[in-house]
């Protein structure tokens, strides 16, 4: 059994907005083994980015606050670390790629300096060595090292994202969090960037937490998938479990919203309605209102989280009593 790089246990995160409390993450539990990649899929506002920021210890406080649970990195609880210890972990052990490469780079520093900066922060090297390493990193992500002295605005979006990846991987982290790394890119560049992430992940044996709302991206890169809805994981399993046997009505709905190449479908079936207001989450199942199979049981009480086949978990009353 390989070791768990990351383990999140029963994580709760809240934001206070005036009188209301936004319950962004409600008891998320997941784990990530070394070299594994986990896709975190959900719609806007489901709590994906909040989960990622919690791991980095970057939840803006106030208004945000982690109210419960544990985040274990190599068995150590990150919530108990001091700010100084966290600074050593960020960028060195755990790195993050942001959604929009256009705005994720400092416009006043050359890209080489920006990569060298992370290296110098975490490794005891001279300025010149760090810059040399930065150039090598640029070559690794497929950009000529000679362009290290240029500014971000001289690169295209896809190239900027490669630079961002180079910054994230410069110190060879054990865990890479990619927060919608391809959303801001066009489809052809998306494929290239995904391939690059995949390839580098294998090369450096990095674990990957991929946050996205695109099931196609997940299929390409991940071995495990967690479907997240209103701050809860509603279905969790391997790629095969989720794609061959989607079981939660929400997951089924997500697949129904994607066009299928093999069948002639004149209309896609979107999931009706909107996500519940996170300040007033309903009692019982958060998805019940939009669910075609909802019954009385769904409206009240906690929804059971059931293992329907080994390693395949579903949070739905539909499967109550059908445990494997």
């Amino acid at each position, binding site marked *: 059994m390989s070791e768990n790089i990351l383990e999140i246990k029963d994580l709760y995160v809240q934001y206070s907005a005036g009188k209301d409390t936004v319950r962004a993450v409600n008891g998320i539990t997941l784990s990530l083994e070394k070299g594994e990649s986990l896709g975190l899929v959900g719609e806007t506002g489901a709590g994906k980015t909040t989960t990622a920021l919690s791991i980095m210890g*970057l939840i803006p406080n106030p208004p945000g606050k982690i109210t419960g649970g544990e985040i274990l990195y190599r068995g150590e609880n990150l919530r108990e670390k001091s700010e100084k210890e966290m600074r050593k972990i960020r960028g060195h052990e755990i790195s993050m790629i942001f959604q929009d490469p256009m705005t994720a780079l400092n416009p006043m*520093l050359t890209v080489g300096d920006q990569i060298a*900066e992370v290296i110098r922060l975490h490794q005891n090297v001279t300025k010149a060595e760090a810059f040399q390493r930065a150039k090598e990193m640029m070559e690794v992500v497929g950009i000529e090292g000679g362009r290290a002295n240029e500014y971000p605005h*001289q690169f295209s979006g896809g190239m900027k994202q490669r630079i*961002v990846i180079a910054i994230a991987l410069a110190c060879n982290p054990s865990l890479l969090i990619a927060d919608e790394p391809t959303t801001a890119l066009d489809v052809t560049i998306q494929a290239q960037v995904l391939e690059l992430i995949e390839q580098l992940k294998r090369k450096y044996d990095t674990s990957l937490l991929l946050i996205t709302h695109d099931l196609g991206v997940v299929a390409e890169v991940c071995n495990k998938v967690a479907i997240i809805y209103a701050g809860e994981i509603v279905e969790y399993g391997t790629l095969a479990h989720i794609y061959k046997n989607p079981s939660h009505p929400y997951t089924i709905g997500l697949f129904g919203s994607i066009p299928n190449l093999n069948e002639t479908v004149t209309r896609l079936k979107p999931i009706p309605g909107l996500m519940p207001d996170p300040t007033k989450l309903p009692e019982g199942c958060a998805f019940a209102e939009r669910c075609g199979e909802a019954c009385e049981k769904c409206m009240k009480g906690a929804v059971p989280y059931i293992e329907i086949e080994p390693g395949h978990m579903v949070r739905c009353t539909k499967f109550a009593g059908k445990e494997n």
Partner: protein
Amino acid sequence: MAAIKNKKQAVNASSNEVAVGGHGQAKEIIGRFMRNKAAVFGLVIVAFLLIAAMFPQLFTKYDPIAQDLRARFLPPSSEHLFGTDEYGRDIFSRVIYGCRTSMEIGLVTVAISCVVGVVIGAVAGFYSGVTDNVLMRFIDILMAIPNTLLGISIVAALGSTIPNLIIALSIGSIAGYARVTRVSVLSTKGTEYVEAAYSTGASDARIIFKYILPNCLAPIIVQATMSIATTIMSATGLSFLGLGVPPPTPEWGSMASSARAYIRDYWWLVTFPGLAIMTAAFSFNLFGDGLRDALDPKLKT
């Protein structure tokens, strides 16, 4: 077919060159500045004033404080370009040497107040909350006191020397820098690259100095150039009131002040220092205006 291919390659090559070519942003800013004729005019005069301040002996053969009582009140002539004053001193030479005093006061004051103001503004903007409130209320107090009045009281208390004058003027203009810096720090703080910098494990100080402040520079530079003019005006104003530079050091304000008794009979005594003050303030303002438009084209209306 081959021709088309070649053409394509040529196009690719040229677009690469454009992308590779040096510091595009700086070039663009300089280009925008150079197209603004008034600003270039301002820059030329500013440059001239700076040269005059550094090497006054290049422009005049007279000692600005040497008295020649036989040559009192001479009108402008080829010998004395701007004429002579009540002690027979050459006015042209005094105006040129006065440049040095004014530039010294202007630049040192701006440097001091800029550093102090920017640090206060950056800390207030970055840490927000209580820190922000305390610092900005302190700045509000400074803003509530009229600058000249503040200058007069400080110089009156400490004595009228150039260093004291600089201290007085610096304290008066800290508030402007603090406000300008705070606002741009607030807007830069929320950008994704600052968040990304946190995710690489950078400390607060590093984020402020490497990520936030460089991106706030444009308004601060503009504020600095504009306030050189104001500072020169305030300094000459205080000197005019007898609170600035002590005689016999040549200074435009004190020259105008001592010459005003003779304004009916000898117009050149008061006119030339006055013109010098006007030209200096005017050219720094033109330069500052042009710089603002060049650095931030969005501001232009």
